[in-house]
């Protein structure tokens, strides 16, 4: 069984291996037929080019990712608390709108944002991209926080209320600290989605002074320079956050994927 499992996994991950292999291949071996299956003449030149050319892009992506995480958590955590615990009139409708919001194709949002940002002179700006990217994560985050905070024992909150704590106090001192796992899950996804975003970046920021790494790769491909080992080296570096998250926080990822799709 394990052998079969290893075989399936190897097949599934072959493209990832190939990306790494090509990133280490020498320029002159790139057009060889058949291509080398292993990086026998491994070179780090592609990675040197990443260091030379792509660092600003990576930095921008990092800033945008962290900004998106901050916006998402700041907006979604209080909303989740309200929907889960304070039962506002009309809360059901807000929850429903969150579900619907997730289904709107990004390309349509991008076009609307483009029209708005153009008239506001907000194109090619990092804060503009942070706001646009946060629309990828906020509805999901509200739903995750709502589901998670519904699970906090009611007695805890009641006891605090009896002791005279107001809603703000309860939220800050009890609910937020207990929601650590939800905060981690939401932050991971918000970061990953904004790091990976291409649609908003290419519509709202192409040609801007600070561009994210997805555009860095896209320009590489588009320039027809066809330096595939540099392109693939950039791709490997752009994949690092995903790899880190998988190693360090795999259980949060699985929790996010299945949240709500399946009832336990």
């Amino acid at each position: 069984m394990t052998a079969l499992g290893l075989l399936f996994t190897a097949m599934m991950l072959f493209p990832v291996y190939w990306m790494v292999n090509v990133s280490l291949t020498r320029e002159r071996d790139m057009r060889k037929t058949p291509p080398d299956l292993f990086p026998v003449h491994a070179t780090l030149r592609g990675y040197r080019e990443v260091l030379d050319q792509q660092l600003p892009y990576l930095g921008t992506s990092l800033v945008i990712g962290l900004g998106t995480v901050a916006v998402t958590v700041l907006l979604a955590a209080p909303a989740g608390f309200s929907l889960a615990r304070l039962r506002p009139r009309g809360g059901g409708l807000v929850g429903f709108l969150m579900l619907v919001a997730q289904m709107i194709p990004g390309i349509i949002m991008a076009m609307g944002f483009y029209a708005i940002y153009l008239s506001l002179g907000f194109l090619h700006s990092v804060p503009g991209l942070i706001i646009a990217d946060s629309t990828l994560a906020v509805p999901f985050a509200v739903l995750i926080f709502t589901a998670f905070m519904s699970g906090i024992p009611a007695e805890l909150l009641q006891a605090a209320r009896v002791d005279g704590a107001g809603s703000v106090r309860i939220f800050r001192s009890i609910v937020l600290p207990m929601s650590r796992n939800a905060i981690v899950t939401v932050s991971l996804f918000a970061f990953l989605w904004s790091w990976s975003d291409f649609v908003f970046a290419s519509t709202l920021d192409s040609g801007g002074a600070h561009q994210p790494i997805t555009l860095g790769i896209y320009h590489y491909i588009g320039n027809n320079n066809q330096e595939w080992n540099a392109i693939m080296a950039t791709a490997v570096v752009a994949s690092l956050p995903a790899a880190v998250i998988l190693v360090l926080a795999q259980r949060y990822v699985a929790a996010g994927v299945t949240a709500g799709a399946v009832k336990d």
Partner: protein
Amino acid sequence: MNSTAPTPGASAAPSATDPVGTAPPPSGAADRFPHGPRSQQWAAWGFLTPVVIYLGAFYAYPLYRNLDLSLRNYTVRSFVQGNAPFTGLENYRKVVDDPTFVPALEHTVLFTGVSLFFQYAIGLALAVFFAQHFRLSATLRALFLVPWLLPLIVSASTWSWMLNSESGIANAALGWLGVGPVNWLTSPSWSLASVIIANIWIGIPFNLVVLHSGLQAIPASLNEAAAIDGANAWQRFWRVTFPLLRPVSAITLLLGLVYTLKVFDIIWIMTRGGPSDSSTTLATWSYRLGFGNLLPEFGPGAAVGNLLVVIALVFGLVYIRAQRQQDNP
């Protein structure tokens, strides 16, 4: 999920991706309880107001602007000045009459249908396989998440190079099997198949993870009882597991559908919808009209986008209904 999950399979991919995609938990918990006392109502709305303003400013308003774009005759100049004449449904008529419309619609249906079928079938097979706990099974299952976590542009450019006509590994592998090379990305008869293959690869993890946790929820005793009655593994799967998994399957497929409809990155990066529109879907066509040409056609682009929104929302509402029914049988 677009991703997620996350964008979904970009197919979600994480989607965007979401592929992309992550399933939202059911809402409506608030409806099942009486509303709180009056003082609590103030607090409740105090916590909720920022997100409501946000929804209005960054969802409703862009969507409204997009609708407005589709109902006016915009040129680059009037786009900047904002005085484009109102033309009603003219843009929609133009789009539907366009020779690209029917192929784009067909490709969208094919791309979505074929992607979903294989993502689901392969995901389910793998979920059943991983349900038998063996050494390393949890680790290997985690590794299967990798395609779904990678930025779509990374996956798309890797597949582009693998499918490169002259130097790609795919044609080299075909050569070893004695089959001639295929122009995966540059031949009109293969380009759609190529982007579908890449999209299936990206969508498998989402299906695997959701169906796997669906399988966990089925009591083992049912399968054991069937085994005692003499059912073999094949019969047990089709007579016991598969029917019991139906609600989860429905939700996986519907969510996958909503996320696959909006896949754009993969196709645009691999083929730009070409050659000669052979892999154009509604999503890539909308983008090309608005941003892909030197002379942007925002009106028709927005019109195509709005058609896509309507289609996605129809299936999205079906999904929400299915989700609710599963929660309150």
